[in-house]
């Protein structure tokens, strides 16, 4: 176990573990959007940045 973890209280470690899945969920809700990506909508062939 690293020195850093040994110094943390058990409670702090638990809290960190609980927040982890929530963070990753949050990340997957905000995919990185490529503004140059080509999309086809209503017959138009567009760049994603055209859609704003």
């Amino acid at each position, binding site marked *: 176990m690293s020195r850093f973890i040994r110094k943390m209280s058990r409670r702090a470690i638990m809290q960190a573990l609980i927040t982890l899945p929530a963070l990753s969920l949050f990340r997957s809700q905000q995919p990185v959007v490529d503004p*140059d990506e*080509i999309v*086809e*909508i*209503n*017959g*138009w*062939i*567009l*760049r994603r*940045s*055209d*859609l*704003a």
Partner: protein
Amino acid sequence: MIFDSYEAYKQTGFKPKACILGSGPAGMTIARKLGTAGIPIVVLEAGSREFSEESQDFYRGKTVGDFYFDLDITRLRFMGGSSNHWAGWCRVLDKQDFEPKAWAPDTGWPISRADIEPYLGEVHDILELPAFRPDVPVSDDIRWVQLIKSPAVRFGEKYADELDKSKNIAVVLNTYATELTGDGKRITGAKLWSNGQDAGTFSADYFVACTGGLENSRLLLWSNERSNGGVVPNAAALGRYWMEHPTFEGGNAVLANYSEFEVDGSNEAFFSPTLAAMERLQIMNFGIRLIESPYPNVKKLIADLACTAPNMAEWMSFQLDQRLRCAAQLYVAWEQAPLASNRIELSKTDVDHAGVPRIELRWKKSPLERRTLLEGLRLFGTTMAQKNLGRVRIDDWISNGGDYPTNEETAGHHHMGGTRMGTDVLKSVVDANCKVHGMDNFYVGGSSVFCTSGQCNPTTTITALACRLGEHLGKVIAV
């Protein structure tokens, strides 16, 4: 020499070495090549100097399958052939059009573009064309190509004087070759119909059928049936692999800068795929014709764009305020996959006034072509967006897999295949010199020898092949 009837010609005692059937771009080019080489030639032309309803009636026929033009509308039967109303768009088939495509069966020619290149100088003189500029790559997928609008040379008008004065060429009008007779090795004669009646049999050492991209198949099918295979001994592919250039409006485009692509006199610019893109997407060749739209269409297009892409629409409206021309219609014409099932047959019930069965054309566009249309527009749209040259909208019927419209251009009036060139006698009718397989003295000129159609209009390539065949025949006859 030009004669208005076979009767008048017969009295001259002229002794031709070769007989050419048909005086369209193919027949006339071959005749002029041979005449210039000092070889006496007769050209038998079914029609007269001018259009007539009676002559056109011989061209009536029926189409089974997809919607197509009436067969007596899509071609002309008088001196000069369909060059009397062609539009004059010119381009030679691309190098890649001659290559076999692994993803499309029965593609590939037995000759390459290099085989016709030596004749392009003559072709430019005949069709009165300036030099073509090289293709310009727009992306790895799309080329900006050039089609040149020639003054639409009317072969009958352009060469009437020259032919009239010629000592080596006799053009005999109102003389319909209803049937060729053959013994499986040689053509022995042509049965003629002139002035509404049987006019006997004509013989010559060599025969060249140049009666057009539908009629060549009809003439050979009928002749072969009558002579029990003596005219086309290997007839498995006869009449088959017939092709057109289907043509439809495919969508619209808004352009970032109209002057990006220099348009021609008709405000048009043309785009085609690279071989790599065709290979990757496994599609046929196609040509996108971009035509500047009139102002009201632009407003409608931007209103539609505003619902989908507000940012883009805002920019477009600004351009419009500046009165910039920035919208275009997109027409797509494409190469048909050569299919044996697309074929010319002889009608079992309907004959013309001379008793020759009329054409029954069996023609259907294939799923591969449908994919070529959609993927072609996507490819062009993607290039336009990626390069920020503009944005493309594909028409709904194409995106949604709807039926082909019947009120549009439909096709190019380009009749190709039926007597295609090749080495396999089961899949072709003529060899690389346009000589009918197994026959010693019988050749075919015109787009019926095309193995594949590429995406461009055929007459420039027809004329180049005719120059090549004329030169070849000149050498054969001189021996």
